[in-house]
């Protein structure tokens, strides 16, 4: 009998161009390599793997497979997964092959967009070119596909269990679903923004009772609490503010390969009427006259010339954002702009408030995840 002992998808942790991205499950649990192990890995979620599209474009992807044979008479076979893993010869010495490198034929990165694929591989062997292929085992894997190598706060090094900033599969579970089908970084960030805003009012809502305070992102990003909230638990409670939303968007988009920052504007400015996350009433946030500051997910240098993604509120998208009627516009890939440009700044702040609503690029950061 031939069997698979283990499969390594991330054989080379120093590169993402020919194999998988370095990942962990969450702050507490590491994803060990080999990702698939005999008797341990049964369902797709027991064998999680992430690939990045951009660095692997036009390149072959490889896995390392350790096979075994209980038949001492078997010394040489060919092994494959039809359509998925290219056939190659395998030699057994004392019933073990050691790790043997296989080329993937059609990895999910070929689709060219973000997604999650649960794959089932039916492994076959044959004794020689003129023998029929015989099925010998099935393995199941969950494959996340992101656009590019994750950016900060996510790190690829050092690759060890102590590095809690390796991309979390708990985050990929949501980010890849929210941005499913995205073929560009702007599209992925926009889809993440839409889905974060859509969490209101059921899971999160703007912090009117607490003065718009940060509940998940004061200092570090309490991503563990946010994930708990997403899964229906208490987390850090129902309330969020702009810093929280900016952090959700940028952290979840950056795990997909986007390159967003959390950055502020200010200080002390009056607001146009808007729809805060979780609210369906057009008013200045919670009826307050203004914001002491505001924070969004921001591209590039986080200046007036760069685009923002704001999952905390919808602004008035029509020709006159200072008055009703209102047309709800969720800011996605929208340039911050200067007063009079009728871009993000003009839609958020009143004409009098716009001069106090200035980009503060010195505040840009990517909060570490805890």
């Amino acid at each position, binding site marked *: 009998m031939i069997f698979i002992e283990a499969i390594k998808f991330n054989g080379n942790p120093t590169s993402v161009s020919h194999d998988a991205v370095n990942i962990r499950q969450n702050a507490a649990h590491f994803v060990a390599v080999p990702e698939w192990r005999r008797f341990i890995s049964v369902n797709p979620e027991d064998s999680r793997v992430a690939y990045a599209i951009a660095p692997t474009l036009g390149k072959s992807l490889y896995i390392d497979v350790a096979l075994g044979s209980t038949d001492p008479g078997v010394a040489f076979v060919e092994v494959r997964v039809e359509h998925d893993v290219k056939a190659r010869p395998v030699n057994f010495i004392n019933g073990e092959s050691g790790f043997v490198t296989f080329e993937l034929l059609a990895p999910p990165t070929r689709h060219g967009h973000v997604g999650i694929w649960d794959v089932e591989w039916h492994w076959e062997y044959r004794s020689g070119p003129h023998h029929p292929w015989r099925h010998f085992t099935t393995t199941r894997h969950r494959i996340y596909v992101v656009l590019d190598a994750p950016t900060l706060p996510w790190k690829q090094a050092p690759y060890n269990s102590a590095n809690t900033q390796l991309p979390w599969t708990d985050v990929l579970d949501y980010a890849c679903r929210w941005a499913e089908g995205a073929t560009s970084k702007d599209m992925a960030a926009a889809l993440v923004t839409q889905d974060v805003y859509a969490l209101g009012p059921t899971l999160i809502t703007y912090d009117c*009772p607490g*003065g718009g*305070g940060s509940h998940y992102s004061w200092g570090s990003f309490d991503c563990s609490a946010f994930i708990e909230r997403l899964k229906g638990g208490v987390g850090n409670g129902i309330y969020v503010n702009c810093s929280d939303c900016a952090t959700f968007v940028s952290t979840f988009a950056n795990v997909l390969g986007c390159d967003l920052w959390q950055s502020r504007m200010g200080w002390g400015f009056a607001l146009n009427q808007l729809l805060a996350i979780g609210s369906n009433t057009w008013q200045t946030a919670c009826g307050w006259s203004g914001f*002491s500051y505001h924070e969004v997910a921001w591209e590039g240098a986080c200046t007036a010339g760069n685009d923002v993604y704001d999952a905390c509120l919808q602004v008035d998208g029509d020709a006159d954002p200072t008055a009703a009627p209102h047309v709800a516009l969720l800011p996605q890939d929208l340039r911050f702009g200067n007063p009079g440009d009728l871009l993000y700044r003009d839609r958020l702040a009143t004409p009098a408030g716009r001069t106090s609503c200035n980009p503060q690029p010195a505040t840009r950061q990517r909060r570490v995840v805890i």
Partner: protein
Amino acid sequence: MQTEQMDFLERRYKARSWHGRTKHAGRVLKGISLEDFAPAGWTLSRKTVDERAKTKAVRSLWARGASSGELLAVDLFECASAKAAHDQVLEALANMQSSEIEMRTGAGAPGDVAFSLGSTLSLFAIANLVVLVRNAGSSVVSVEKVARDLETVAVKHLKRRPGRE
């Protein structure tokens, strides 16, 4: 915190009138435990200690009743001094967007310096300790009594085993 935002907050909240001033000069609370500061009638639901923070910060979530509708977030910051605590108060204000948060004065205001938004948010410093009490559940409750109770606990500890700056 960015200098410009700090300047803005110091002007907005008239920090010169209170920063560094305490009724408990020279005394500090050390080694605070969350158990001492448990709000009466509430059950601990979650506790987080941010090891990366410069100041010892204990963040906690408390539930009341059967449903998770009533939740309180209580954050305690043990600073090195009263002055550092007042910096921490400004840091807390720097993470609140509302333009309507006001300084509380008078006999009912807890601690050395206090800020609130109606009865649903309380932020105060007493000696070197900063306390932030706010709602975290969909059923909004007044936090005033809890804030006063926590101040009472802090005063008791300052009298019983005062540390020195």
